[in-house]
């Protein structure tokens, strides 16, 4: 009796094998970087983002550049550098017909940067401490845990955000000056650091999207 009931239940479930073939390439950019570059005199930067789906897994690549510049009567600091990140996002909205995303993921970031600092200072004990310091072509790498949304707004236009918890920063040797700001990561003295991107995307379909696998 029990075995007949179990058999009947199994026959009601339709399993569809996940289709890992990509359906679209999404490319976009970070709006915060663009806005900041035009409103914040101390910052210039941009970031491009792309992802491609493999069922509910998205292989993502980011590439960007930023530079900062601060100056006062006693010091002047500037840096510039490029970075890229690669990683995977996992979409937890499995049943959304538009393939909107609420995702968690991880990234591995790699960057190269240079920075300069000029200090004009007089110490009561040591006298003048005016000096120039620089770090040139310093490599950096770090890890990120990410979460965020991707929402289809209109036809191929998508908006989204990515919140990042960055950690595990490692930089190349900087004997005289400790790095202040690592492009792609942020303040170097922080063991972990938050980042945020507010992004606009265009999704380019590469094939007609199949049915979303559902469990009845």
């Amino acid at each position, binding site marked *: 009796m029990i075995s007949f009931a179990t058999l009947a239940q199994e026959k009601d479930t339709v399993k569809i094998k996940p289709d890992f073939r990509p359906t679209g390439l999404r490319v976009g950019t970070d709006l*915060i970087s663009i806005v*900041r570059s035009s409103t914040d005199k*101390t910052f210039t930067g941009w970031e491009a983002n792309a992802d491609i789906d493999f069922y509910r897994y998205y292989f993502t690549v980011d590439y960007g550049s930023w530079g900062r510049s*601060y100056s*006062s009567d*006693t*010091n002047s*600091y500037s840096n510039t550098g490029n970075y890229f990140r690669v990683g995977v996002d996992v979409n937890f909205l499995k049943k959304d017909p538009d393939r909107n995303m609420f995702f968690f993921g991880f990234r591995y970031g790699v960057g190269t940067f240079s*920075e300069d*600092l000029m*200090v004009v200072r007089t110490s*009561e*004990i*040591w*006298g003048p*401490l005016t*000096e120039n*310091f620089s770090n040139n072509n310093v490599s950096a790498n770090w890890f990120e845990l990410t979460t965020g*949304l991707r*929402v289809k*707004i209109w036809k191929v236009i998508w*908006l989204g*955000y990515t*919140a990042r918890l960055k950690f595990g920063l490692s930089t190349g040797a*900087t*004997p*005289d*000056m*400790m*790095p*202040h*700001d690592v492009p792609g990561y942020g*303040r170097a*003295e*922080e063991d972990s650091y*938050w*980042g*945020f991107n*507010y992004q606009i995307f265009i999704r380019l379909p590469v094939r007609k999207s199949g049915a979303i696998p559902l469990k009845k």
Partner: protein
Amino acid sequence: MKKVTWFVFLSIIAISCLNEPDCYQLDNDEIGLVFSVMEFGEDIDTLRDIRISSTESVFYPNTIISAVLLPLNPNLDELEYIFQWENGSIDTLLLRYKSQIQYVSEDCGQRYVFNNLNPVSSSFDSVRIVNASPGYPASTNLVIYRCAKPDVGGVRFKRKEGTTESDSVLTVSAVVADFITDTQVKQVGPSFYLPLNKSADTTTFEFKMADGDVENLSLSYRRLTRKSPIQDCESVTFFSRIKIVATSFDTTSTRFINTAPSGSVIKSTNTRDPAIINFDIFL
């Protein structure tokens, strides 16, 4: 509508992320040195001053110290500290370190970060690194050890009127021990710190008063000499059961007190380093 709500919420988060964090760290450009006597602990001595290579500044002039905080020069990776003590002796400490600068923020400017403290050479008996990175606020980085020499006894002169006791500061031109011609006797107000003879069970002192009078004071004691557990130090002679056996001072009484200069009573009957006051002598 749902989407709009989401993006307004997320925009607020994004704007909050743009804020620069507060300035929270400053230079860690001071090192902490603690002076210690091997086997006894805290050492207290009087400095004439401390001077540092590359600056004319003078530190701790005429100061009684058991620990000091000294600056590090961010433009150098090595400094020599010169300690001139009240008794005329001079000690040196050559310290090597790593100095780095870091830009912090527009508000805070830059900070200097020091680490890898390394006492390359010194005239002290021993120097131990407790923490090679100076902290903020500064704390102990190096402990400077001196071999123990508990070969000094202390007497303090007092007056008693009724039940009231007061210090009696003698005006003395010299104090001479019977076993050493160039006797180093330290007078601090009413107290005298007297070197004891390691080779005899008594030592007699001549107090040459400013008015020309000479007074005598003889101390007896037991001696115990043993090898120091510290390799770099010579054997140590402890003196115990110190007694005043004779004196020409016009005394009314004496009192065994065994009290440190700070006022704390020492339970052990052995001499200590730094020396303590063993007796009050009432004139």
